[in-house]
């Protein structure tokens, strides 16, 4: 609202006074904030987010949950909060409204661009991201970008990396990216080869749990009970069968590559720290990024980030890091919620509820219970709630205060090894 500066609320009893105040806020003395980060009294007053009791707690109002924070030192803010960020994926792309993949791609690649000082090449698999970003005659990419095929992205990335090595340009880093289909299904052969050879590539899977580009067909990353065009919500067990699917993060770890991480578009600081971490490592690295798809999931475009948050907070999508096949860190659940809260807003799970009374009691409580079991297994197996997981040292990037990604073991995912026979 023009004229009203930040932080100035309208006033009340003196209603006729102009709301807010017009002079710019915050003298920018963020330094002052740093003066006294410690809570009075015991450190644990900061509640669930605080570090183990006794440690000083930094408190920054929105801490590191929001994208930015004027109270933080600029070096601790996210890449996305920087007005000069790359926008690797620029405006004008043809992604659907509220596309999680478009968001995830910009998040990850902008962070990688910062980490590499802008010296980066991206290789892209066929899929939504490729189609909506480069329809002739327009490209949305601000970085060197190559699309070859659906299933060969990891190999193409390997070739680019090899060329850069032989050309004596090790400072130029390579990122390969694909959707879940291009990663866990058709691209898996090449991906496994890239992992096994420990080629110097960061491969990012934008997981929206189905083949969206072709019209929402089932992939090996599609969770149980989810409706897709090839797992319709009909028959005795509507939607995708239980006990199927591929757990890529775990498969990646099985290659003993230097770095594997999962993340969602709902926790930007965590995601950016992981990308930065990945770019500091040589060899094969894998980032599995959870990106909701409003179209494919039958969700409201504005719910994209909320759903990603719920996927993590239910335990259905564990967020963790692993090095050389060993889980080193996990992002614990902050406010645990039952899976039903995650399922209900999604059209692909509509058959689990009563069409006549979508907000009423579930139509298929048994199915929801099985999905809850999967979440519970993740939570128990990886210590997603409370202590029991390897703690994560507060990375230099980002303030210590909100728990960074904590540590859990590989995920059962909704469809992962857990359910597998």
């Amino acid at each position, binding site marked *: 609202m023009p004229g009203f500066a*930040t932080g100035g609320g309208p006033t009340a*009893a003196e209603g006729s006074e102009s*709301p807010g105040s017009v002079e710019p806020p*915050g*003298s920018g003395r963020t330094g002052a904030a740093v003066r006294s980060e410690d809570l009075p009294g015991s450190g644990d007053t900061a509640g669930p987010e605080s570090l183990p009791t006794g440690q000083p707690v930094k*408190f920054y109002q929105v801490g590191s949950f929001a994208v*930015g924070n*004027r109270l933080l030192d600029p070096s601790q803010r996210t890449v996305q909060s920087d007005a000069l960020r790359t926008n690797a994926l620029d405006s004008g792309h043809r*992604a659907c409204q509220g596309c999680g993949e478009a968001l995830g791609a910009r998040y990850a690649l902008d962070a990688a661009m910062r980490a590499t000082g802008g010296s980066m090449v991206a290789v892209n698999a066929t899929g939504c991201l490729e189609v909506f970003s480069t329809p002739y005659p327009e490209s949305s990419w*601000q970085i060197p970008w190559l699309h070859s095929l659906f299933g060969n992205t990891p190999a193409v990335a390997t070739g680019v990396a090899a060329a850069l090595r032989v050309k004596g340009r090790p400072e130029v880093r390579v990122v390969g990216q694909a959707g879940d289909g291009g990663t866990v299904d058709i691209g898996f052969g090449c991906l496994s080869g890239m992992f096994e050879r420990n080629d110097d590539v960061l491969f990012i899977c934008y997981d929206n749990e189905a083949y969206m580009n072709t019209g929402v067909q089932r992939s090996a990353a599609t969770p149980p009970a989810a409706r897709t065009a090839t797992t319709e919500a009909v028959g005795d067990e509507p939607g995708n069968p239980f006990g199927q699917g591929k757990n890529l993060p775990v498969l990646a770890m099985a290659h003993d590559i230097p770095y594997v991480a999962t993340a969602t578009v709902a926790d930007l600081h965590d995601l950016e720290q992981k990308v930065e971490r990945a770019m500091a490592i040589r060899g094969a690295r894998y980032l599995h990024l959870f990106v909701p798809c409003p179209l494919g999931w039958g969700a409201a475009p504005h719910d994209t980030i909320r759903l990603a948050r719920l996927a993590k907070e239910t335990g259905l999508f564990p967020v963790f890091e692993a090095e050389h096949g060993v889980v080193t860190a996990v992002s614990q659940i902050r406010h645990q919620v039952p899976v039903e809260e995650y399922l209900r807003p999604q059209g692909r799970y509509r058959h689990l509820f009563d069409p006549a009374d979508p907000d009423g009691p579930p139509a298929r409580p048994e199915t929801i219970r099985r999905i809850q079991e999967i979440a519970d297994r993740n939570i128990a197996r990886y210590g997603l709630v409370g202590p029991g997981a390897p703690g994560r040292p507060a990375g230099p990037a980002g303030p210590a205060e909100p728990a960074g990604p904590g540590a859990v073991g590989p995920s059962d995912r909704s469809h992962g090894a857990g359910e597998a026979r």
Partner: protein
Amino acid sequence: MEEPFAITLDPGSSRANRTGSWRVERPVYVDRLPPCNDACPAGENIQRWLYAAEDGSYEAAWRSLVEGNPLPAVMGRICYHPCETACNRAQLDETVGIHGLERFLGDQAIEHGWELAAPPADSGRQVLVVGSGPAGLSAAYHLRRAGHQVTIRESAEKPGGMLRYGIPAYRLPRHVLDAEIDRLVATGITLECGHPVADLAGDMASEGWDAVFVAVGAQRGRGITIPAGDSARILDAVSLLHGVEDQEPPLLGRRVAVYGGGNTALDAARTARRLGATDAVVVYRRTRDQMPAHESEVEDALTEGVRMQWLSTIAHVDQGSLLLERMVVDGDGFPQPTGEFEELGADTVVLALGQESDLSLIEGVPGVEIADGVVRVGADLMTGRPGLFAGGDMVDPSAADRPAEERTATVAIGHGKRAARTIGDWLEGRRPEPVRRHEIATFDHLNTWYYSDAPATMQPTLDVARRQSTFDEVVGGLDESSALFEARRCLSCGNCFECDNCFGVCPDNAVVKLGEGLRYRFDYDYCKGCGICVEECPCGAIVMEPEEI
């Protein structure tokens, strides 16, 4: 390089594709009225000064604060902070400790000797303010800021009205009160203490004031007739507190019964304890829940050993004892006598049954209308006599532009502030600005996931032993780090605080960051109207509006 046709494209060329045309709804930034600001009778822009305090800019915060209220150190202590009652954070963990922060800023100002801004050029107008209570001081301050010449006349020897003579020192140390009044007067206000105004009409005529604001408050204890023996010792709370302030405390004896259920009753009881009463009992006709006194006051009183005698009326007072009749509350919540009696030992009975104003100075002024012991004023606080304004405890509470307020110092400050503006309007012959009320930023507008969990910090309190024996201040202040922490607990309900969420979460890079303090702008060329920015805005400062199609 010679690029292959169509297969190879130039970077960022998609900006030619204006995806804004897909939009059916557009996000728009709004400012909503924070519940704290909404609840503040003094009309403080609480959120604004909290924002300044969040990064440690305490002086800036204080300067913002005193735009609404010239007495932060005082009000931070005695205000019953309706702002905190309204605070959305209460639904998250605990309310933001606004009063503690207000007090902290007030004390900082006193400690560092921060001065109030010098008034602008003289307007050449002379305004008389009668009474130096919160309403009078507030009016004088705001009138002075508007450039008018202001004279305050106070009948008492010292300024402050009820702040001084009604509120015990253990709640409001006098050096604090003095410091803030001195600073206020220092802006160029003429303060005439010990100068009662007996004939206002006459003075107005003879002295040629351009306008007058009367705020003499309600200093007279309301009395009732209780059957009593000759030697029964009965006095009223107001004179008790006044006496204490004048260093002439009345003799109370060891056992004191206070009759009434308001804050003054509790002040009287707690004061009695400090004056040496071993047994101080508050006698009240109704239940605890029905007491007008504030819960915190009741708690403090109980902590200090004050006893409560609910559902009782005093039937008869004798020397050394009094007779109580038990009451019951009927279906309508009214107390009804039961005919059951009991005796209560008491050397003194202190009546705290409310106060009333001495309106003699204004009676007979042509046009001034008095009813039910209060002066009738309009929403602009002007009496029937043009140029004569009144506010504070002496006016009809319904004068406020909201449902009947209780009579508090904060309300009085608000009256003073409003009076100053309406007097200004009247002097300049301006039409009052229409009141613009923004939609209130209720809790459901917020996305609280983004706020770090952080319960409130407690202010230290004096140990009970000392509270029973001295008039030392009971509640301590926040230290600097607690204050900073507390300020940062503000959710900035309804108003952008530049968290960059909208800038970050837009899948189409359609939010333009305008730089610190300048907030953001939507780039409608590319915004597809997904609404993620609205959903993810922590403070509810964005709304979706339908596009005209």
